[in-house]
């Protein structure tokens, strides 16, 4: 019997996007997601840097995407709302675990000592 496939490890932008979607809850669509990610990165991001990973993660099942109603302020265009799926949550947890393992045993680096231990 084959072993179940472990949750995938996310890239940094994917991790931040998934966390932003979780934080925003019901209001997770392009504009606030992009705004939140720009706040975290501290710089402006291009359209493609946000929407392509979102779309890719929706295709991979880490996010679900659903259209809202059209609005006049958007020229009659609909918002695309994203929601974190169980697979997305598992991927976030897996990424967090990996991050902890990577950083484990390196307190000196966190304390500002840059040379490796002898």
């Amino acid at each position, binding site marked *: 019997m084959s072993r179940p496939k472990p949750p995938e490890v996310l890239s940094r932008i994917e991790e931040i996007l998934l966390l932003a979607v979780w934080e925003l809850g019901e209001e997770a669509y392009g504009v606030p997601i992009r705004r939140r990610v720009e706040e975290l990165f501290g710089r402006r991001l*291009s359209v*493609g840097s946000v929407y392509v990973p979102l779309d890719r993660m929706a295709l991979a099942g880490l996010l679900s995407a659903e*259209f809202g109603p059209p609005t006049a*302020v958007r020229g009659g265009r*609909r*918002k695309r709302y994203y929601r974190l799926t169980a697979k997305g949550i598992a991927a976030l947890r897996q990424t967090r675990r990996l991050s902890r393992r990577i950083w484990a045993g390196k307190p000196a680096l966190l304390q500002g000592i840059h040379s490796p231990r002898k």
Partner: protein
Amino acid sequence: MSRRRSGPTTQGPSPTESKWLGRAERLLARLVGAELAEAILGDLQELRPTVEARRGKAASWLWLALEIVGGAATLAAQRLRPAGGRQEEKQSMDNWSAKFRRAAAAIGLVACMPAAVLVTGGLLQSDWSTPALRSALERTLFNPDLLGFRVLIHPATVLSGLLLAAGLNLIPLLRVGVERRPGTLVGTLALRIRAAHLGVALLAVGLLGVILSYSFVENYEVVPTHVDGQRSGQVEGAIMSRSLPSGERLILQAYTFIESPGTEMLPFHLGDGGWRYGATRSADGTWHIVPTPPARGD
């Protein structure tokens, strides 16, 4: 998602702006699909009033245009790039509509025409053609006084037309695949069968092959550089003429004889009844062309 609230209702864009935005949406839809394009453009349009409040209307539209152009470039690049090495990405060389592909095939066919005319004209001018046809071609296609034909069969027109036709029609046929495996990157190139593009591409490549082969054969010349393993000297001359035994007159426009150790004369035949010609050097160092009659029984 009925519990979600709609956005604030403000005055929408003017008809011109709507038309412009519609075009931008179609461009984005080609790159990322209609649904994502709608969401992206809606988001940008929603953000635009915020920019307008800070910087003015003109600046806000400029911002929107730059976002769309920059976004389109990034989206195109990201769709071509494999995502994080986790998956295989296959990408067609073209993202063209059926209408644009038909236009590409038609343009390619027209671009092949100068080369087709040149090759056909060349064949019809050969020895097995009729004198009337050859004469007609001399007066028209190969007449240097007729500018139109001169431009049509100019090498630049012919070659650029063939390259354009081949390029335009190979792009829709090719599919590039990139797969990232541990420690290596595997690329694949696949050919799709699309009859119109394949036909035009083969025509262009075939014509190019014929022209290049003809140029090679026509200008091919074997130039000896070594005689008897070692080159020790050579003599060159200009025009020389002699009467041949057959009564015809032989005119050598230019010649080069190569001297090799142990030999003063390097005979060559001209197909005039076995006569051979060679070079010999006199005591004062002057070189002469010397004809030798055919030996009896030759």
